[in-house]
Each structure stands twice: as C-alpha cells, then as structure tokens.
C-alpha cells in the first residue's frame, strides 16, 4: 500500500513535471539567446490550449489538424511579440525587459479573455480516458501522451541544437554573440528564432496538458512561474538539466502534497528553490565555473 502510494505520487509528479520542463526549456532558450527572462512564457502555454479549443470548436477541425494549427498560431504570436515588444526596445535594461514581458503577458491574457471569454473549457483527451494500471498506481492515456510528447520534443530539441547548423549557430550565439557575428551569424535572427522555438514549445505544453487540466484565459501565470522554477533548478540550460529540474519540481510537489501538507506544497517547492539559489546559484546540475552573475 505504502509503495503503491509512493508510485502514484511519483507518476503524477512526473507528468506535471514534464510540463514544467517544457515550459522551463522555453524560458532557457530565450534566456540563453537574449538574456531575457520572458515572463510572458506562460501565456503561450495558455494560447496553445485556447487556440486548440478555438480550432476544434469554432472551426470544427478534427483534433489532428487543430493541434498543428494551434501551435502555428501561437508561434506567430511569439514572432509578433518579439518584433513588436522586444526588438524596438531602446533601453533594454534587465528591469525594463522584465516589465515589458510582464506587460506583454497581461496584454496577451487580456486579449484571450476578450476573444474567448472567461470560462474554463474542457478539451477531449487524445485517446480516451480509461485509466491504465501501472503497479498499484493508475495513469490516464493522456499522461502517456504527455510523457511521450515531452520525450519527443526533447529529442527534437537535442537534434536541433546538436545536429543542425541553425541549432549550433544558436548555441554559438548564446555562448558568444560577438564571435557569432564575426562568423556571419545574424544575431537578431537567432533572437527571433529563440522566440519561435519557445513559443511553439510552450504551446505544445499547453495543448498536451489541456485535456487533463482544462483551459481558461488565466492558466498561464502559475504554470509559467513553475516553469521558471524548473529552469532555475536546471541552471538555465536548454537541455537535460532543465528537464530534470522540471521533473524534480513536479515530483517534489506531488510528494509534498501527499506526504507533508497539501496546503504548503507550493511553499515547499519555493523553499527548495530558495535553498538551491542560496547554496548552488548555478543550478543543481550546473558546473560551478559557469556561474551566472
């Protein structure tokens, strides 16, 4: 019984954590390319879910068509955001960037509210909702979709960043913008790319999680913060450490809720985050040398 419980906590935590991881990677990609913490990242998660709903219900598209349309539309949103809010900024101090992305997130949320109303909506699961037993625990098919798609996205990411020219150029740019310019990489293009990728990833996260959690115009805030946490735990890397960061956060939350106190579970997550920042500001897996100050 005790083991079954633990298994259930772990499984629930993993699927929540996978979402945090996807959002967290979105944060890291933009951060590495531009040095910006994009507080509007959570809104792309919301857009993913809301747009899927829009294509499903209003345009009556089948789900397999609605999803790519939603991702594409959210990505366009990301491009617009970069072009209209980030690029024209004259004094791009960190504080101004924080405020402009917060302003952007309020704006996007407001637009979504006006367009689609304040109601919460359900989205049908991709393949039924008959629980599947794993050991003494149960999961839904959607959980498997979440884990599966997360793995695929991370694999695609890995492939992109390590095996394509454009991906390598982005890493080069993240490491040393000036040298990247000197070999002919257009830095502004890479910044735009980073917004494209992370808005698309945010949207995917929003879509795969929507059948479980439902969507409303205001779901982005908290998810965004948790994703940010995951990215910090992972040391702002756009790779596996942020994934681990997300999973650890998800599992800790789930265990915290199950074993300690459900009321304080978010507090537990944030206390761990604070301790981590105090003791290892470079993230749980970062090397001490790559200290970011």
């Amino acid at each position: 019984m005790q083991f079954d419980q633990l298994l259930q906590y772990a499984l629930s935590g993993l699927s929540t954590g996978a979402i945090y991881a996807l959002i967290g990677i979105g944060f890291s990609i933009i951060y590495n390319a531009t040095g910006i913490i994009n507080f509007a990242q959570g809104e792309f998660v919301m857009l993913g879910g809301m747009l899927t709903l829009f294509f499903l219900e209003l345009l009556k598209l089948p789900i397999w068509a609605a999803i790519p349309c939603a991702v594409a539309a959210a990505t366009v949103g990301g491009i617009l955001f970069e072009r209209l809010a980030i690029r024209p900024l004259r004094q791009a101090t960190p504080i101004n960037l924080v405020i402009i992305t917060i302003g952007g997130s309020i704006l996007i949320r407001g637009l979504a509210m006006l367009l689609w109303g304040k109601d919460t909506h359900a989205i049908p699961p991709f393949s039924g909702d008959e629980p599947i037993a794993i050991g003494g625990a149960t999961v839904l098919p959607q959980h498997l979709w979440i884990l599966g798609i997360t793995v695929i996205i991370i694999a695609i990411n890995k492939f992109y960043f390590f095996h394509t020219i454009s991906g390598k150029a982005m890493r080069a740019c993240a490491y040393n913008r000036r040298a990247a310019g000197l070999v002919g990489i257009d830095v502004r293009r890479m910044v735009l790319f980073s917004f494209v990728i992370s808005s698309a990833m945010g949207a995917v996260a929003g879509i795969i999680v929507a059948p479980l959690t439902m969507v409303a115009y205001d779901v982005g805030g908290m998810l965004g913060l948790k994703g940010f946490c995951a990215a910090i735990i992972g040391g702002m890397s756009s790779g596996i450490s942020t994934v681990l960061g997300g999973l650890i956060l998800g599992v800790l939350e789930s265990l915290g809720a199950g074993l300690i106190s459900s009321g304080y579970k978010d507090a537990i997550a944030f206390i761990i985050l604070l301790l981590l920042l105090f003791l290892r500001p470079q993230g749980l897996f970062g090397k001490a040398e790559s200290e970011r100050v």
Partner: protein
Amino acid sequence: MLRVNNVNTYYGKVHALKDVSLALGEGEIVTLIGANGAGKTTILNTISGVTPAASGEISFRSESVTALAPDRIVKLGISQVPEGRQVFKPLSVEDNLEMGAYLRYRSSEKTAAIHKDMDQVFRLFPRLEERRNQLAGTMSGGEQQMLAIGRAMMAKPKLLLLDEPSMGLAPLVVQEIFRVLERLRQETGMTILLVEQNAKAALKLADRGYVMETGKVILEGMADELMENAEVKRAYLGKEQKAAPGT
C-alpha cells in the same frame, strides 16, 4: 583590395582611431604593429563592422563596406580571427568549424564542398583533426588559436583579419602558428591583415607593415625596413633613457 580611408572610431568617449588610413593589395600579407592600446584591434573591429566607424570610408574590392553589419561583411569575404580566440567553447571542434561556414550552409552550398575545406583545415592543423569531437573549451590556448584560424578559413574568405594570434602563448606555440600562416600563404595565396604585438615574428612573415601609436598610424613601410627602424622599438619600449634623463 581593401582600402581604409581617414577612419575615426570612438569607444564610448575614447577616440580610439584618429584618421587612420591603410591599404592592402591582393595576396599581400600586411601587419599592423604597435604597443597595446594603440588601436590595432579597433581597426580590425571597425573593418569587421563590430565597432562601426564614426567617419571615414572603408571599401573592399571597390565596394563600400563602411556601414554594413558583421554578418554582411563576412558574406563579402572578410573573416576575422578575434583577439583572445573566442572559439565557441561549448561546441565541439568540428561544430566550431561548421559555424565558420555558417553562411555557406545558409546559401545552401553543397555539404561536400564544405567538408573538403574542413579537410584542408585539418591538413594545416593535424591536431584539430585528432580532437575533432572534443569540446573547444577543453583545449589548450594554442589549439584554440588554431581552431579560431581554422574557423575563419571555413568561410572561404578573400581577406583574413588576424588579431594577435600569439597573445598569451608560449614561444614554441607561437612559432608553430606562424609556420602555419606561412604555409597558408604559400598554399592559398590568401590576403592577410595581421595585428601583432610580437613585431619580429610578424614582420618576418609580412610583406609590409604599419606601426600604430595612440590611435594613429605613425609609420609604414616594407617589413624588412621596419625591422631595422629604431622608431619601432621606441613605440614599444619608450624613448631611450640613456640620453639625457628627464627629456
């Protein structure tokens, strides 16, 4: 091939280049020497578009490149090997070289051609081939310098700008690097603008040289002439103290 006419550049409030003019002919190796802070690096960065000129004119193959962005200038055939190497440390040696050819990939040049050039870089620097899958950050300073040169060559430049390739390197390594530059010139006939503090090594390699001091070109001439010029030594070490002290 390259003409720099009366260029003035500012770093914030510092007037780093004062009416600097120089010229390079096709196939020439020209060196720019002078003490630190003389403005040598600034010239290279101004040519590369990193720190644009406030006034003056730069033309490459009779085309103006004065106000272009760095990536456009690379596209026209000017590659810089920056001071302090600045290789992409988290990327492997091979990836670094691929990044050098970034624009060629973007203009969808055949991968085979690019790989052929990579093999040529490996021929020049066999040590890079041994370490092709190693992360650039884990290599020694000399190897990183070789990689930086290789990376710049991958763009198939017509003009190579080299910024202090000997900086912080042990004498033996410096010798090796200069030997490679010599070979590079023999094999490809590449035009090179070499910024060096190590004046002897640079002048030995170069056809011509310019001497800079506090943002100005104070001397120019054939390499062997400059080698003998006492003024060069003065530019480095200050005027001789033997003659009446206090002047």
